[in-house]
């Protein structure tokens, strides 16, 4: 039964991609198609990265409300980026090879995420405590980010300036190949870990009884989450509630938490929402930059609903 729903989701995702590529095609068709294909590739990566990172993060922390971005991971990424500008100077930063730059940024995020989050994940914390810690960490990184931004001079700031809102319309295409590699790698690793993730969702004690080395496994998964967050944040900027929305939808639709089904379902839904939504806004509503606002709005409301319903359960 979940398989049939997965197939339906797959069909919907492909339909959205085709619509995205072909709707309102005119002018220099080859040129426009190439542009759209590049953008489509970026959107696919963002969707897949966010789906993977959110599912894994929720499984590891054992709740369905927290996402990497609510825990401030994307803020952490931006902070790492700003730190590089601060240390290297604007010129130094810009003249870095983009691949090298992105590579260093991913590694920085992985290192920071592990030092900060791992102590919290060794034992599962109570949901309220996690949420509080996440909010505090998020605020902390955002303030550190703007502190650094104030310390460096305005010209250099322009280099690192990153929108505080995601913009699915202006994705970065210079990182395309590298980001594709990272996303594909993350997707393969996540898929191979699908059975382990099922066991991890039982919590540290049950997982240890079943032969999982908890700390090692959680560290690996956290690295995977960090890599995925780095990709999506680098490409479009921070997205607070998109992951939450996608995974909650996926869970409703496939009605299971088994990762062999949930992971692909979440990725497909992310693609449908992103690519389909972008097509819709671009051609039907004529305002392509509003998608992120709408997604965040709906996602934010869902977040509140889950919080309220969750606390009543």
């Amino acid at each position, binding site marked *: 039964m979940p398989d049939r729903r997965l197939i339906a989701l797959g069909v919907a995702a492909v339909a959205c991609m085709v619509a995205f590529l072909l709707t309102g095609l005119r002018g220099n068709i080859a040129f426009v198609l190439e542009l759209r294909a590049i953008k489509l590739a970026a959107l696919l990566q963002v969707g897949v990265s966010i789906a993977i990172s959110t599912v894994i993060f929720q499984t590891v922390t054992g709740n369905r409300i927290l996402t990497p971005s609510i825990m401030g991971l994307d803020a952490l990424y931006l902070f790492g980026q700003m730190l590089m500008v601060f240390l290297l100077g604007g010129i130094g930063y810009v003249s870095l090879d983009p691949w090298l730059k992105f590579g260093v940024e991913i590694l920085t995020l992985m290192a920071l995420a592990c030092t900060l989050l791992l102590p919290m994940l060794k034992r599962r914390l109570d949901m309220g405590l996690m949420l509080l810690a996440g909010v505090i960490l998020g605020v902390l990184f955002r303030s550190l980010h703007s502190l650094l931004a104030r310390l460096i001079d305005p010209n250099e700031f322009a280099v690192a300036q990153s929108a505080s809102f995601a913009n699915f319309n202006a994705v970065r295409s210079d990182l395309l190949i590298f980001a594709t590699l990272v996303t594909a790698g993350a997707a393969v690793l996540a898929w191979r870990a699908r059975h382990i993730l099922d066991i991890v969702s*039982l919590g540290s004690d049950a997982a240890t009884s079943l032969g999982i080395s908890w700390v090692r496994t959680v560290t690996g998964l956290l690295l995977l989450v960090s890599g995925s967050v780095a990709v999506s944040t680098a490409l479009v900027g921070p997205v607070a509630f998109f992951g939450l929305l996608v995974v909650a939808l996926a869970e409703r639709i496939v009605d299971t938490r088994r990762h062999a089904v949930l992971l692909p379902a979440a990725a497909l839904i992310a693609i449908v929402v992103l690519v389909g939504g972008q097509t819709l806004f671009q051609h039907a509503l004529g305002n392509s930059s509003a998608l992120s606002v709408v997604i965040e709005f709906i996602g934010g409301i869902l977040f509140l609903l889950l919080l309220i319903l969750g606390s009543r359960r």
Partner: protein
Amino acid sequence: MIRIENVSLRYRTTPILHDIDLTIPKGGVTALIGPNGAGKSSLLSLIARLQPLQTGSITIDGLGVDSTPSPELAKVVALLRQDSVIASRLRVRELVGFGRFPHGRGRLTQEDCNIVNQSLRQLDLTDFADRFMETLSGGQRQRALVAMTLAQGTDYILLDEPLNNLDMYYARTLMQALRAIADENGKTVVIVLHDINQASAYADRIVAMKGGRVVGDGTPAAIFTPDVLEGIFGFRMRVETFDGKPLVLHHL
């Protein structure tokens, strides 16, 4: 054989277990009894390497629990915790199937499915197999967790108060099932029980703990005497003999 030597445990400065030396022979049912806070769960979690050993050593069939790779150990010993939390949106059959994880890393063969079905039958869960865990009653949930532990198929099975939430019928059924797998399949069952009459009826051996120490170790007939029980639980109770086994009238 589980061999526990010089094991002590402290949380920060509070000592929990004091120099435990205990050998649990292979095969049979051993009941661990003792008042709340005696350290029974702590001892089991050390045996099942849920927390690191601070001092001393524990070996299971010669495998050191702190030196043997975790996946290896998961094929030898299974633990059901006293307070297991269960992930949501999980069907009973899926949960029980997770018990097979140590053997196939998540891929279920036909043999695995047979074992899962057998565990489901043993705990009378066949009708619930496709229900979500959160839609079950407390006792049904507990039975599903026991089924998962049994499905792991280990030689050593540690159960921390598995009779919690079970009605009389299922408590008796579970004890009989444990007795059967000990007798017929040569499994070693270590079970924490608060109902000492269940311990008396089904266990070969009683280990009594109090204040982080082992204060009694012997057959039910040797431990379940008014004097020994008073030493453990702090009040006097009448003990009768029924069908050749001690029957403790602890509620009177």
